[in-house]
């Protein structure tokens, strides 16, 4: 049932927006075609403006992954996580999540394969992945699009959200799923 509703929402949301907004525009006397083209014009510039910021972030993250830093960091933090009673298998994902979306998706897939799709670890990993975004990617793209170079407290605020999402994922999954 829930699955069905969710499916309907995700299939229909975009087509409904694409019909609904121009329809409302027409009813309000907006020249929808001309207006659309006028707005769409900016698409290219915005995308191009993002490139230097994205190159800067992705290169640094890519090099770090290439050097095997994620595994190393996991090794160091492992005892810390064990001390607070958290499953250490989740650690590489926690470190990768703010840095790379595709990289952390790969880790989740790996965990699902190793532990089984209905295991506690798989569900925890999927929850942890789904409950946050790729912080550094978002920062690069969003700030890059308007040429912001001094990001002030945005990085720390974003990482606070990441840590909170991980902690909440562990607590909530412990409550909901029998280990």
């Amino acid at each position: 049932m829930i699955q069905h509703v969710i499916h309907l929402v995700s299939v229909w949301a975009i087509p409904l927006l694409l019909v609904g907004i121009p329809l409302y525009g027409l009813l309000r006397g907006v020249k929808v075609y001309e207006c659309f083209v006028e707005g769409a014009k900016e698409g290219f510039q915005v995308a191009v403006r993002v490139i230097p910021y994205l190159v800067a972030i992705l290169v640094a993250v890519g090099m770090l992954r290439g050097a095997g830093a994620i595994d190393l960091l996991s090794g160091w933090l492992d005892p810390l996580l064990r001390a607070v009673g958290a499953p250490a298998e989740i650690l590489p994902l926690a470190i990768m999540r703010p840095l790379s979306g595709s990289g952390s998706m790969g880790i989740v897939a790996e965990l699902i394969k190793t532990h089984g799709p209905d295991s506690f670890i798989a569900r925890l990993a999927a929850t942890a992945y789904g409950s946050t975004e790729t912080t550094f990617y978002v920062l690069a793209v969003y700030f890059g699009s308007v040429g912001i170079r001094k990001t002030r407290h945005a990085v720390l605020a974003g990482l606070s959200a990441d840590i909170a999402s991980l902690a909440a994922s562990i607590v909530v999954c412990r409550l909901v799923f029998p280990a």
Partner: protein
Amino acid sequence: MLNYIWFGLIIVAVLLGGINGKIEEVTKAGLDSAGAAVTIAIGLVGVMALWLGIVKIADEAGLMKLLARGIAPVLRRVFPEIPRDHPAIASMMMNIAANMLGLSNAATPLGLKAMEDLQKLNRSPGVATNSMCTFLAVNTAGLQLIPASMISLLASAGSKEPTAIIGTTIAASTAAVFAGVIAAKLLERLPVFAVPPRESGGASS
């Protein structure tokens, strides 16, 4: 801050790569990523144009103002610097709504539109405003009602109940949003993160 983080990532990568004997991988990963960044950005052009076009229609039809008025009471608390009826409120709301529905194709263009609107209120253009940082904290927390990619990943691995993670994901991402917003609100007052004096007097103060 980003200066040190960025350089830190690179120097750690090179040093570690050298010690681990993986320096060639480091070089390759760096160069590959540079190419990937351009591919990602260019890949944005189409959807970006599509949604910016649609948003322009919504704006012209007065839909954005209507939306802004409807949800303003909630968002005004979180973004006190933004004037009533300002288009930034509506575009941020649309971005958050798209994120919640898991429409990532729509969410990024709408989010960038919101950044553009926020930038219009920014009196020191190269420096992030408080509103921008708070908005990004909400975005990096990624409030999502339907974690579609994870559900399909679990389903394709043969899970009996792939949607079991919906509830836990909503709970955890709600916690993340609260933590992000609270952190942004607290951190924006620290002198370290103040808008540099030469460029200050901004809309954010």
